[in-house]
């Protein structure tokens, strides 16, 4: 949050844990706080297994069986989503808060035309007649970049390319003009030119309709020039928050520093030179260390880092970071 707009979503002290069949508890999201302003685009940056998708699913209260929000609250326009009845929630989910999945091939119904699947969202939420609905779907298909919406309306998912299917998923997500759109790795299954197009489309949706967007990705390069602020997540916790330019120009947490370094060196290096990388792997969530969770991989580790989890320090204005480099 850069403090200019109103807060749309405030996550406070959220903890989500999975209980496995063998009884072990996996704390996927641990005491996490995050604010998303209205009309703001926030990026969650983190590696697979860091809990970023669990966070996204928790925001829609669509957690898989076995996952429980143990603590905290998710305030949407001041109301706690975790306390709402399923019925209250249905008025929000798909209408006010919507979701673009990583792989729309899995979320679209293969035996229904894609137009009817966009119409379905409108039918569930808005009192429109058939003709109005069809007209609205065609308008939406045009808005997400289809040149001939009539032809696309009657197409089936398998007749479309991966990029086109992602546009259909976005048309579904923006159909009811949501306040918040959550996109979980929306471009990771697409090749580079299509990634660029989808990013441009999401940016355009915010510009035109003021939709706040939460984007989840593991690649800092995807966030450049598109996202307002970034929350960096590691092993279930947010380790650093700041606006995009600040985070990319001057990352504070050693983990963020390594991520940005990797992204910067990804292109343009001579053939056969080693890639920048972080040694080791994220800790096993069933046995997180007591201290800083990045400590085993950190080049700047100190004695205190193994003793307890670092609190949030604020070494620069509006730049909270959980690292003992910046205090004590």
């Amino acid at each position, binding site marked *: 949050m850069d403090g200019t707009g109103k807060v749309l979503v405030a996550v406070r002290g959220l903890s989500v844990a999975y209980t496995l069949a063998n009884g072990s508890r996996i704390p996927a999201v641990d005491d996490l706080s995050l604010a998303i302003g209205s009309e703001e685009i926030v990026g969650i940056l983190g590696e697979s297994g860091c809990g970023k998708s669990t966070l996204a699913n928790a925001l829609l209260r669509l957690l898989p069986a076995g996952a429980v929000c143990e603590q905290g609250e998710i305030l949407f326009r001041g109301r706690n989503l975790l306390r709402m009845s399923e019925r209250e929630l249905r008025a929000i989910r798909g209408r006010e808060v919507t979701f673009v999945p990583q792989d729309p091939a899995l979320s679209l119904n293969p035996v229904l035309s894609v137009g009817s699947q966009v119409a379905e969202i409108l039918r569930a939420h808005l009192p429109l007649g058939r003709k109005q609905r069809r007209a609205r779907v065609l308008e939406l298909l045009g808005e997400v970049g289809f040149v001939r919406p009539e032809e696309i309306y009657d197409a089936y998912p398998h007749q479309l390319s991966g990029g086109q299917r992602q546009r259909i998923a976005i048309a579904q997500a923006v159909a009811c003009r949501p306040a918040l759109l959550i996109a979980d790795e929306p471009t990771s299954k697409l090749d580079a030119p299509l990634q660029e197009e989808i990013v441009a489309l999401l940016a355009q949706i915010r510009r035109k309709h003021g939709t706040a967007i939460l984007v989840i990705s593991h690649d800092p390069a995807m966030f450049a020039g598109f996202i307002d602020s970034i929350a960096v997540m590691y092993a279930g916790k947010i380790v650093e928050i700041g606006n995009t330019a600040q985070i990319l120009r001057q990352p504070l947490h050693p983990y963020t520093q390594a991520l940005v370094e990797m992204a910067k060196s990804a292109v*343009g290096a001579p053939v056969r030179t080693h890639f920048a990388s972080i040694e080791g792997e994220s800790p096993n969530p069933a046995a997180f260390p007591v201290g800083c969770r990045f400590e085993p991989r950190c080049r700047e580790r100190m004695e205190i880092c193994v003793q307890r989890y670092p609190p949030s320090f604020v070494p620069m204005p509006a730049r909270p970071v959980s690292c003992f480099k910046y205090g004590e």
Partner: protein
Amino acid sequence: MSREPESQNAFLRVSGLAKRYVRGGLWRERVVEAVRGVDFEIAAGRTLALVGESGSGKSTVARCVALLEKSDAGQIWIGDTDIASLSLSALLPWRTQVQMVFQDAVTSMNPRFTAAEAVEEPLLIMGKDEALRRETVRSSVNEVGLSVDGIERSVMQFSGGQRQRLAIARALTVRPKLLVLDEALTGLDLSTQGQIANLLLDLQAAHSLTYLLISHDPAVVGRMADVIAVMAGGRIVEMGSTAEMMTAPKHEETIRLLRSARAAQTNLAAITGASL
């Protein structure tokens, strides 16, 4: 494309490769010309990257070279032998020379196997005795940077990066000369991708391995390949050294595929003040 004079040190030479699939319908059949005459060669110890959008035919080329598909026309030369012309039984010794590593390779392994069993499997198929198998598994697993202590666990208990290391270890057991890497670095986090890429670079240097790299990621291709071939519609539309292709691409498909990587990079550089 005219046949250039054969270079002395080409490990693999593919010439006029073609492959069509017949898509069965109940009433009519549809023929898909997946690969329509592809020529390239890879020098021993070097890497050629095939890039192209999905459906361009790059994976079909990979599968033909890895002997998982029979091509319909053309030759695949390794030394003086056209392996595309061999009968199934005559192919057997060549299968150890060419190994393939897939994206999320563990989906190609038996989920009930322990890591040790999965890595050992090619040796079992070749009928190697137990002492040799055990020794080879140990050395392969060590070589990819995994500890032998954990290899009695199920393959499903390994992380994405570790699984990819297991897949590489498994390929290495038969001492291949050519690895076909079909999107083997796709879907991994940046740090894991970097680790696996570095491992592949080290293995290449240590064993003079030749790589056929299939990827849609310009960052990976630009760093690992000596030569880039761009495929569209079943043909190679442009081929050249990595430096040429990255800095002066000519074909529109090359420009389209490689430019966007630069775009993301330029955005990042603009913000961070890094020089490209």
